[in-house]
């Protein structure tokens, strides 16, 4: 019986309450076990040797001295990781990113690894590995990488999206276009045409917990991996494929996770830990330093964008165009294309066109970062939209309301929108007390909108009723934002029992079918759908058991308020049966009671947000302080409002850091200059105001409780909102993110 995903519940008993999270005590007392907290008897310490060069041919690696050092149990290079990817370019790139093969492609690229009895010995061994490099010219800037004659990073990239396909390799990996109408004709209709170019620097997700794992491979090919990850099943599949293991013999257990935001959707050093363990025949623990996290995991792209918007005096946008150039790091992907898809998605434009150019550079392989690519595009578009509103003297919210996408709008990325929520977030912003509050000296207010797709995916949940009538739920999506509490709420709501009667755990990969990762704002959306399905199946089983106990037909048993009730005049004297009473008789009515669900949770529905920001700019130093910040976003239905608010606030906080301070700084030698939190400054509490939130609840018709994913969209508007606030505070338009004090001060001085 397939799950009915259509919206069926509008009144709730426990959904929407702010219950305590089940992992709270462990986390505040230090009992929770993260990636680095696992130990195994006889474990070794794994360390990775990384390239000091941005681009270099590896002529020779001599590991003989390292192997002879007492206490060293294994040394590996690319030779220990043969290419088993069978021509799959994506998997081959993952393999090559885990361990350089013929060339080191960026500063920090792994070139060898050791496992030794302790960290000191492992460090000594790294020093004994001798590598003969031929240093090659490098390029780290996206615009430079796209120029003819730029240092060539791969000789097998021929630009996709150009016909005929080029015969000469280049760093330009993909060209894509989106849009509709005739933008040139549209610009001719405009009273004002606003054009501006923007740059955004590379940022890291900045999760507090570095990557860490404990790998244990037995000689019979059975392996275990304890790891911090957003997707244990994907890690299992990728590691097994790269190492030639059978997936069923590699059991991956996800630890608690200290943040991921997209950065823990890829394997980085985990295959190396497994390869070391296999070679050493001992467990290997591998924990990255913060320096390694910055240099050798997956930050988001840096980018360069040109935007052009034509507008009439009445506020109608006649045409909009953007060219977006994103670097993907050292391996080809399509991050610019996603920017092109999202750039103008908030708006209903008759003539709109985006062109994306994706490039490879000598930087680490880019990974998803919370609504990947969208914040960068939104900064450029929302800044230009603000300039357009100013040009015609229109309130920026009214200007956006006039041009907002709505049901029936042909989106800038192609399809026609169904019911969407950008309009309500803008209307709520206009009515919000923040929008009309007074401002102080050197302060300015800005606002911006944001869009993200959201998605669902493969999801599996196992629900078991214990003999005492309490309920356990095994989830396949890891809990990064409180999802165990939300899933317990869903099961409690469906069964009609107290929240405290349900306990959720995150299962390992041997306990459930495949689950996609906790990404794409899908964790709560997808797993709650599966949890509802599993609970409904368990209810069906419990009705069957009650029917057996009462010796009456199944259709005379209903499930009401957490109990089986016999319905009909002849059953009036039967007392209802609780879950506890049904569970107590399970052995004699058919055995254990369970509900299992395997679904593909499609229909997540696109997501929109509007943010308001007050910034104060010190005209003497250029330092920007955020004085007040408000997030308005549609959650469909907030299952646990505190966690929805947490997602809104977390996205805004990361966006504020991205907007004001965070950036990868490369030297002329192509080496990262600021690989640590002292020099790469993420916001701390004292940098942030209380971030106010307003949850709109416009039910998603494709979820039984109306839920939408909320994890990503909140990072999309901050860059634009803060840029607009700075513009109003200091009278200067910043076009380069981060809008750090030196850049703001220079803009102020240039304007004087």
């Amino acid at each position, binding site marked *: 019986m397939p799950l009915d995903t259509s919206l069926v519940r509008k009144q709730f008993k426990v959904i929407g309450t702010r219950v305590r999270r089940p992992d709270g005590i462990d986390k505040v007392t230090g009992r929770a076990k993260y990636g680095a907290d696992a130990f195994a008897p006889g474990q070794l310490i794994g360390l990775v040797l990384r390239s000091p060069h941005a681009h270099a041919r590896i002529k020779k690696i001599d590991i003989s001295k390292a192997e002879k050092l007492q206490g060293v149990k294994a040394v590996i290079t690319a030779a220990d990781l043969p290419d088993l990817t069978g021509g799959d370019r994506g998997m081959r790139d993952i393999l090559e990113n885990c361990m350089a093969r013929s060339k080191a492609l960026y500063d920090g690229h792994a070139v060898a690894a050791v496992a030794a009895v302790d960290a000191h010995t492992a460090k000594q061994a790294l020093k004994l590995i001798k590598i003969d490099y031929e240093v090659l010219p490098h390029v780290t800037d996206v615009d430079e990488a796209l120029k003819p004659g730029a240092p060539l990073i791969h000789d097998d990239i021929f630009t996709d999206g150009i016909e005929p396909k080029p015969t000469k390799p280049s760093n330009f990996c993909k060209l894509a276009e989106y849009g509709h109408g005739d933008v040139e004709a549209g610009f001719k209709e405009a009273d004002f045409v606003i054009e501006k170019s923007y740059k955004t620097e590379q940022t890291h997700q900045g999760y507090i917990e570095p990557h860490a794992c404990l790998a244990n491979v037995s000689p019979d090919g059975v392996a275990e991996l304890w790891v911090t990850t957003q997707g244990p099943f994907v890690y299992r599949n990728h590691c097994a494929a790269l190492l030639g293991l059978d997936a069923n013999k590699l059991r991956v257990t996800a630890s608690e996770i200290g943040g991921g935001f*997209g950065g823990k959707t890829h394997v980085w050093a985990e295959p190396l830990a497994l390869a070391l363990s296999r070679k050493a025949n001992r467990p290997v623990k591998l924990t990255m330093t913060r320096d390694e996290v910055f240099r050798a995991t997956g930050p988001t792209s840096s980018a360069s964008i040109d935007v052009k918007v034509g507008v009439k005096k009445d506020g109608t946008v006649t045409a909009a165009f953007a060219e977006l150039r994103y670097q993907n790091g050292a391996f080809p992907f399509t991050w610019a294309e996603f920017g092109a898809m999202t750039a103008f998605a908030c708006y209903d434009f008759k003539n709109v066109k985006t062109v994306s150019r994706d490039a490879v550079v000598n930087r680490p392989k880019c990974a998803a970062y919370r*609504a990947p690519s969208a914040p960068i595009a939104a900064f450029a578009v929302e800044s230009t939209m603000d300039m357009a509103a100013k040009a015609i003297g229109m309130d920026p919210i009214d200007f956006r309301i006039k041009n907002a996408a709505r049901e029936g709008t042909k989106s800038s990325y192609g399809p026609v929108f169904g019911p969407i929520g950008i309009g309500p977030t803008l209307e709520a912003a206009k009515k919000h007390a923040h929008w009309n509050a007074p401002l102080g000296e050197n302060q300015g207010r800005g606002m911006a909108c944001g869009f993200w797709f959201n*998605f669902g995916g493969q999801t599996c949940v196992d629900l078991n009723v214990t003999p005492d009538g309490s309920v356990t739920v095994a989830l396949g999506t890891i809990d990064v934002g409180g999802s165990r509490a939300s899933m317990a709420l869903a099961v409690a709501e469906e069964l009609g029992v107290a929240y405290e009667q349900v306990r959720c755990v995150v299962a390992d990969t041997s306990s459930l079918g495949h689950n996609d990762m906790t990404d794409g*704002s899908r964790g709560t959306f997808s797993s709650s759908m599966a949890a509802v399905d599993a609970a409904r199946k368990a209810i069906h089983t419990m009705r069957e058991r009650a029917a057996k106990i009462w010796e009456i037909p199944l259709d005379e048993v209903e499930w009401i308020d957490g109990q089986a009730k016999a319905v009909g005049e002849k059953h009036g004297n039967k007392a209802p049966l609780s879950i506890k009473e049904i569970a107590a008789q399970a052995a004699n009515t058919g055995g254990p009671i369970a509900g299992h669900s395997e679904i593909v949770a*499609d229909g997540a529905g696109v997501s929109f947000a509007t943010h308001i920001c007050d910034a104060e700019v010190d005209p003497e130093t250029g330092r920007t302080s955020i004085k007040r910040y408000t997030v308005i976003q549609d959650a469909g239905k907030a299952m646990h409002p505190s966690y929805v608010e947490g997602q809104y606030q977390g996205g805004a906080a990361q966006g504020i850091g991205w907007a004001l301070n965070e950036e990868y700084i490369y030297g002329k030698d192509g080496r990262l200059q600021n690989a640590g939190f002292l020099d790469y400054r993420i916001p701390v509490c004292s940098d942030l105001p209380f971030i106010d939130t307003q949850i709109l609840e416009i039910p998603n018709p494709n979820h039984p409780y109306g839920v939408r994913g909320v994890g990503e969209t909140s990072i999309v508007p901050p860059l634009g909102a803060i840029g607009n606030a700075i513009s109003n505070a200091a009278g200067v338009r910043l076009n380069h993110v981060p809008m750090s004090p030196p850049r703001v001060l220079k803009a102020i001085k240039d304007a004087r």
Partner: protein
Amino acid sequence: MTASLDTSHLHDVHLWGALRPLVGGATSIPMRAATIRELFRKLSDEYPGMEAHIKRGVAVSIDGKIYRDQWDTVLPAGAEIYLMPRVPGG
């Protein structure tokens, strides 16, 4: 939505830019199919290179609702069908 396979309708299937060169540059192509699975099978059969794209990941927007995995999903008569890249998340 799941389908019985005898309900094929003729659709104007819109393509994102990367797929257009495979069909001679057209922005959309007529295709009779009852489900996403049938649509993908026919696209693979008729247009060389399409199968590789589908293996890498193609999402289908049906009247604005985006499907990534559920290939049994019905393509209703008169629905707007739009093929899109499969977007990752963070």
